[in-house]
């Protein structure tokens, strides 16, 4: 403890030098005066007494030095001096420093980005009490086939019989509901949980409490923190207040902690209701007494001291007991367990491999970046031998010089690390912004957390140290005599193609390939915007509603949509209002096999056809041309089934036969075709034209309802966004509890459909840029080293009359040779590899002449710029200076 105390005082002394020292001078002064006085008293002359006093005190300056060092921390001072010197040195070589920091920064940024995924999906524990003893259970079937949910009776049996667990809870993963609160109702997703859920998970609550025993059927709700903030203005007294959920009154009992969005960390749910009460919200939930209906996820808290292994053994015993007691449902049943919050078992191995592969790739990128920077540092070390030799001759130790070099490379490493973290902040937020086109709410956002920061710090430190090792070692042992004379003590007679050159050639060749692919995707993005999608995108406003959530019967839903269409169509500025189940280009949809009735059975007899619902006027509103027949009219659920098909359906299913009044067989249901319309893109931009069957919404809604709600499409005369408020009001007039979601214009919707070409262009654009920068830095480093090695040779050439321009060309030519070799190697490889990208390209050929013609000159131009800096330096070599050391 006294040592620690002394350290802090010295650290404080380090930051407040000065006044303490004068205090010590005063003390010395008083010491000498007292000693002198004693001497005079003993009979010496004042001069002699003072002389004696000073002699006995010893070396005053030495004492003062010891005191000064003792007050502060000398090693810290010398470290700071070294850092300041290092920063000055780095500042002197601005170009090289910037290149080094940029390439290490890109490498570390890429690593930090990938690691933030690993941290988010693999390392982060679930935000619940002691995640290590909370298990998620799965059922397996047919001898270990993974993985299924639980039926309520099986869950109850485990809860009552298993002795390994202190508690076992179950929940249904996803229940949609519309919720009131401030503003208009909103559609949110929640979970139905057993009343012991909050006890078993030991979930910390922000406010109030979780459910307790006896509330199995209570009409109560726990809100997610985000929902509470968004809808209820963070009301601190919300516990005990009523809220309206899908039109039913619920009492709030608590608010969950902000980090909690569900046990599995990927689904994003925002409210929890008791399982027994869930049928109020979701009438389609299975019967809890049916042992064969698997719809629950089970989490279990291990008893203290019980391991997962022994719990698994007990579950195995239970499984075999169940199989005997309930052979009808539990035959071949088994149970598997996993720590809660880890990746879902079915996708885990694929995701782990994905992350591992990405990590290897980005580590490789960092290694290449590091090799380039090491080259650069080596070039510098060669140039600094005189400096080093002088310092050695003046008495600096080699260790001190090595420390100096290592410090400089570590500074570069940290500079790169800081840049990398900044880059990864940007890249993770950009990645998190990409909305996955999934129908259920997912939280796949990633961010830079403390694990990522620690990892980046370690990477920067490691790369900084590794980078500096070789140059530090080499530079600190120049042959004194020859280095002082200016001879290159590091140079060895080398082969023409060193490892260094080969590395650079490989990098440039790879960047040729990357740039070609990047060019293809950029061109594809450009041409995707000219794809004919087959329907109107301007002046269309879309809103989705899900009357089923509010307990509407299908017939009532149909009536609701009919009324809504009439009211909206009557609004000023509205041309027409139609409805469908899924707007085109939503990424997914429904489909079924169709064929001509009676055609022979065969593997290809059923043609996969996209299914859409439509109301009268749908085609006119979307500007889809009618090619033959009529529109929908007043079909009824019990009337004969009719359908309208697109031209592709006529071509592929009917094989060009007269479509009007033709009967087709849609997976067992007969349809009479009443009309033919033009082709449209149905799911994605890149798809081949698919056959489509439009069914009457009025006729279909009862016996084949949509699970994702219905979309109202409003064709407006002017700006569609300005009609939104009036349309919303019409919906609330019909039902104030109806939640509206997916509100967007068709133009916004189409932009989302560009997700794939966008993300491909963005990804390859990033990789292409990184590859290009690394290759340029690599070339720059190699050429710098070459120039620094040839300084004397160039000096002699210039002394013999070579012009600076000729010297510049000499260097440029050498760099250009490397680049040309790389292009000759890389271009054919890119030509062959581009075929692999063909299926991701829109409207252009993989052998796009434009791309393949532009990339090589572009790359050569970049290479010239990279060589130009060392070439300029070579040309500015002063012949006299270079030769003077002879």
């Amino acid at each position, binding site marked *: 403890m006294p040592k620690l*105390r002394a350290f802090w005082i010295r650290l404080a002394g380090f930051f407040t030098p000065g006044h303490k020292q004068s205090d010590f001078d005063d*003390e010395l002064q008083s*010491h000498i*005066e*007292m000693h002198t*006085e004693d001497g005079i008293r003993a009979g010496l002359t004042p001069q002699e007494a003072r002389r004696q006093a000073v002699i006995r005190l*010893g070396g*005053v300056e030495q*004492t003062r030095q010891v005191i000064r060092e003792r007050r502060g921390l000398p090693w810290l001072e010398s470290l700071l001096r070294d850092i300041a010197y290092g920063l000055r040195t780095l500042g002197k070589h601005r170009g090289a420093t910037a290149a080094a920091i940029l390439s290490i920064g890109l490498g570390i940024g890429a690593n930090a980005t990938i690691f933030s995924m690993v941290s988010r999906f693999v390392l982060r524990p679930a935000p619940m009490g002691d995640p290590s003893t909370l298990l998620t259970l799965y059922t397996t079937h047919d001898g270990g086939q993974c993985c299924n949910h639980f039926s309520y009776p099986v869950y109850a049996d485990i809860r009552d019989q298993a002795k390994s667990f202190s508690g076992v809870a179950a929940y249904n993963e996803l229940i949609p509901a519309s919720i009131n609160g401030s503003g208009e109702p909103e559609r949110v997703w929640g979970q139905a949980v057993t009343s012991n859920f909050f006890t078993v998970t030991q979930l910390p609550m922000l406010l109030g409490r979780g459910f307790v025993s006896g509330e199995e059927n209570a009409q109560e709700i726990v809100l997610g923190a985000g929902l509470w903030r968004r809808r209820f203005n963070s009301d601190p007294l919300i516990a005990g207040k009523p809220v309206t959920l899908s039109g039913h009154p619920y009492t709030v009992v608590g608010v969950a902690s902000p980090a909690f969005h569900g046990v599995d960390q990927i689904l994003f749910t925002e409210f929890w209701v008791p399982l027994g009460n869930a049928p109020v919200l979701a009438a389609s939930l299975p019967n809890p007494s049916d042992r064969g209906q698997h719809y629950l996820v089970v989490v279990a808290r291990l008893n203290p001291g019980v391991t997962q292994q022994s719990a698994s053994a007990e579950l195995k015993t239970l499984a075999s007991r169940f199989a005997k007691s309930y052979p009808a449902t539990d035959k071949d049943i088994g149970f598997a367990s996993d720590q809660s919050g880890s990746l879902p078992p079915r996708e885990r191995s694929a995701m782990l491999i994905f992350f591992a592969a990405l990590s290897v790739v980005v580590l490789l990128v960092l290694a290449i970046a590091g090799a380039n920077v090491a080259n650069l540092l080596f070039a510098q070390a060669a140039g600094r031998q005189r400096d080093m030799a002088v310092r050695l001759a003046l008495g600096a130790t080699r260790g001190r010089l090595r420390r100096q070099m290592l410090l400089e490379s570590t500074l570069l490493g940290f500079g790169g690390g800081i840049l990398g973290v900044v880059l990864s902040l940007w890249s993770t937020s950009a990645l998190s912004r990409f909305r996955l086109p999934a129908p259920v709410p997912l939280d796949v956002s990633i961010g830079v957390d403390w694990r990522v920061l620690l990892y980046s710090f370690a990477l920067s430190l490691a790369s900084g140290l590794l980078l500096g090792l070789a140059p530090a070692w080499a530079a600190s042992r120049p042959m004194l005599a020859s280095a002082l004379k200016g001879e290159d003590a590091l140079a060895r007679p080398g082969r023409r193609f060193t490892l260094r050159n080969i590395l650079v050639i490989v990098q440039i060749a790879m960047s040729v390939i990357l740039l070609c692919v990047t060019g293809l995707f950029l061109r594809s993005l450009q041409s995707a915007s000219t794809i004919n999608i087959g329907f109107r995108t301007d002046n269309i406003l879309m809103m989705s509603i899900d009357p089923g959530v509010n307990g509407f019967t299908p017939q009532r839903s149909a009536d609701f949509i009919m009324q809504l269409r009439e009211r909206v169509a009557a609004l000023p500025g509205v041309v027409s209002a139609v409805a469908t189940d899924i707007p085109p280009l939503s990424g997914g949809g429904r489909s079924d096999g169709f064929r001509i009735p009676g055609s022979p059975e065969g593997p290809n007899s059923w043609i996969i056809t996209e299914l859409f619902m439509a109301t009268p006027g749908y085609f006119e509103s979307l500007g889809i041309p009618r090619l033959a027949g009529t529109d929908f009219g007043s079909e009824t659920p019990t009337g004969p089934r009719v359908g309208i098909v697109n031209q592709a359906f006529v071509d592929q299913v009917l094989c060009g036969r007269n479509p009007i009044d033709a009967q087709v067989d849609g997976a067992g249901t007969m349809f009479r075709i009443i009309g033919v319309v033009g082709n449209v893109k149905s799911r994605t931009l890149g798809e081949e034209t698919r056959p489509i069957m439009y069914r009457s919404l009025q006729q279909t809604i009862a016996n084949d309802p949509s699970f994702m709600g219905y979309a109202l499409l409003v064709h407006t005369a002017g700006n569609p966004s300005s009609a939104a408020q009036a349309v919303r009001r019409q919906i609330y007039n019909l039902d104030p509890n109806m939640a509206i979601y997916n509100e967007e214009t068709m133009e916004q919707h189409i932009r989302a459909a560009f997700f794939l070409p966008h993300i491909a262009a963005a990804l390859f654009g990033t990789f292409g840029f990184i590859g290009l920068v690394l290759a340029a830095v690599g070339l720059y480093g190699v050429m710098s080293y070459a120039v620094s090695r040839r300084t004397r040779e160039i000096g002699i050439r210039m002394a013999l009359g070579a012009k600076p321009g000729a010297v510049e060309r000499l260097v440029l030519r050498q760099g250009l040779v490397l680049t040309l070799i790389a292009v000759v190697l890389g271009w054919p490889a890119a030509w062959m590899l581009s075929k692999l990208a063909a299926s991701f390209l829109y409207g252009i050929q993989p052998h796009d002449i434009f791309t393949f013609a532009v990339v090589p000159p572009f790359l050569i131009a970049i290479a010239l710029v990279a060589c130009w800096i060392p070439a300029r330096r070579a040309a500015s070599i002063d012949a006299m200076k270079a030769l003077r050391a002879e």
Partner: protein
Amino acid sequence: MGEKPDVWQGTLALMVLRTLETLGPLHGYGMARRIEQTSGDQLQLNYGTLYPALLKLEQEGFIRSHWGVSDNNRRAKFYELTKAGQRQAKKAAAEWEQTSEILARFLNPAEEA
């Protein structure tokens, strides 16, 4: 010229602590003289070396200092033991006694049985 032994490493701190323990608050010069006297003028103390030792002890919290006035009406910096210093003086003394006792056995080995 007869060589006087230098002060051994580490023992100076103990001497300072013991001196302050017996005499109470004292300035650096007085302490240096006192240590010489106590050793019966056997020790050649370079007065300058006393001050780093004092600073170290102060940083470790065993002594504290303040400016005061000496017997001869001179401004001087006085040092005194803290509570921790008193404990440390006893502890260090005990340790040193044990060490010297052990060493003594080597210097005057007991007759072999």
